[in-house]
């Protein structure tokens, strides 16, 4: 947990005080701008990637971050099937063993709360790379870093969260982070079936962050600085008909861009299916590929903070 600028584990986005966020963002910026300055920072240190759920970009960007800092990586892709978990070993025992081999453990797990359980027994830092429907704090860090990088500020921004807000852990983690800033306003644009859960709305109320729930994306687009688009998760709908009824509703295309402010940005945690038309990719406001690239630098900054 973060105490002042000390940080041991990365479990949930609420744990980051503003001062630490700012420190990480400045460091990420330096790493992006002058990567050669940081070569060899983590020479000889070892990162274990323990993935109980599939991931491509999170895992690869963590590995790239570690390698670029001079560290080494090892891991298992399908920890559930191909580790001792298949033989009945508890998560706690696995973590006890792996923390004897590595200097940091990056873990993705299918159960909410798994990262906290791991941290309780680990002798090295645990980084939560997604725990079921719970949180994905490093995605939130890179999202917030992208907003700051693109708009040069976080205080005062207006954000539309669009799509599947009930099941998207990235939206949850990012909203928790945003609640630490001033004069934020949030629009939740979602079909009724996948609205933002009440616990997060209550959290925003507690932090005096105004939020609006609506189904009318067109009305929101001219108002906001950030459109955070997410994939409607087909697997969560009761019937294909119900999914088909809403899947195309919130599509960011040329028409949507025309409604948006000239400087506003479109973000997406990726992968996208068809909720952002590829014709948007060429617009300078399409920030999602830059956002993905930022994942490398913010994870470098995070590993550096934990290990250097």
């Amino acid at each position, binding site marked *: 947990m973060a105490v002042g600028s000390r940080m041991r584990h990365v479990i949930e986005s609420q744990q980051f005080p503003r001062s630490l966020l700012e420190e990480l963002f400045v460091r990420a910026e330096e790493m992006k701008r002058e990567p050669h300055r940081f070569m060899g920072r983590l020479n000889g240190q070892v990162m274990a990637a323990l993935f109980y759920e599939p991931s491509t970009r999170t895992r690869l960007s963590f590995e790239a971050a570690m390698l670029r800092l001079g560290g080494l990586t090892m891991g298992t892709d399908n920890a559930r099937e191909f580790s001792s978990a298949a033989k009945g070993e508890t998560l706690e025992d696995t973590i006890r063993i792996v923390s004897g081999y590595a200097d940091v453990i990056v873990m993705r797990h299918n159960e909410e709360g798994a990262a906290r359980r791991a941290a309780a027994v680990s002798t090295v830092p645990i980084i939560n790379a997604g725990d079921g429907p719970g949180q994905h704090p490093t995605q939130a860090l890179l999202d917030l870093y992208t907003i700051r990088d693109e708009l040069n500020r976080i205080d005062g921004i207006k954000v539309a969260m669009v799509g599947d807000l009930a099941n998207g852990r990235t939206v949850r983690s990012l909203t928790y982070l945003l609640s630490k800033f001033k004069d934020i306003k949030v629009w939740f644009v979602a079909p009724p079936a996948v609205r933002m859960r009440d616990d997060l709305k209550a959290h925003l109320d507690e932090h005096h962050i105004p939020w609006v729930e609506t189904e009318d994306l067109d009305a929101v687009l001219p108002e906001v600085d950030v459109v955070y688009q997410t994939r409607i998760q087909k697997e969560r709908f009761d019937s294909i008909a119900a999914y088909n009824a809403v899947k195309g509703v919130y599509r960011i295309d040329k028409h949507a861009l025309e409604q948006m402010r000239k*400087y506003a940005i479109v973000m997406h945690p990726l992968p996208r299916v068809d909720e952002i038309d590829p014709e948007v990719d060429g617009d*300078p406001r399409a920030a999602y590929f830059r956002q993905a690239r930022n994942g490398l630098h913010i994870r470098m900054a995070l590993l550096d903070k934990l290990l250097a």
Partner: protein
Amino acid sequence: MSVTQRRLKATVMDADQIRRSLSRIAHEIVERNRGTGEVVLVGVVSKGDVLAQRLAAILTDMERTVVPVGRLDVAEHRDDRHLRQPSHRATSEMPAIDGRIVVLVDDVIHHGRTARAAMDAVMDFGRPRAIQLAVLVDRGHRELPIRPDYVGKNVPTSDSERVEVLVEEEDGVDQAVIVAG
């Protein structure tokens, strides 16, 4: 000395980023001042005046009213003028500013000494209701109690580096770069 003669360390803004930053600053100016009815843009020679012209074009397009633009040569007001070679004076051109909100526009803010000089220079032309400051790049290291109201991008730098903004009108390209000092 041109950028090409020094060691280019990094590009901090490209043409798209500069365009979007100016667009955002224009929106912020409108929001802060509830329109542009009282706003006068004043660019600091030599890059600030180019940026002020572009901001004016964006604001005029947004608000459908023409925003007056001035340009300011602060050479006479700088606190280090005794150290500098006398340069070709670009003359200031100033619209009426009495009772108006003057938004000073400059490319880079560093120590804050140019901004202070610009405020002094503005006061020579009249008594604005308020002065605000817009910069494309804020590189920190302030030596005076001055903080810009509108910032394109904060770029933390070391004191030995230089930040240079290139504009298409003068340099053929829109770019902000860090060069070794």
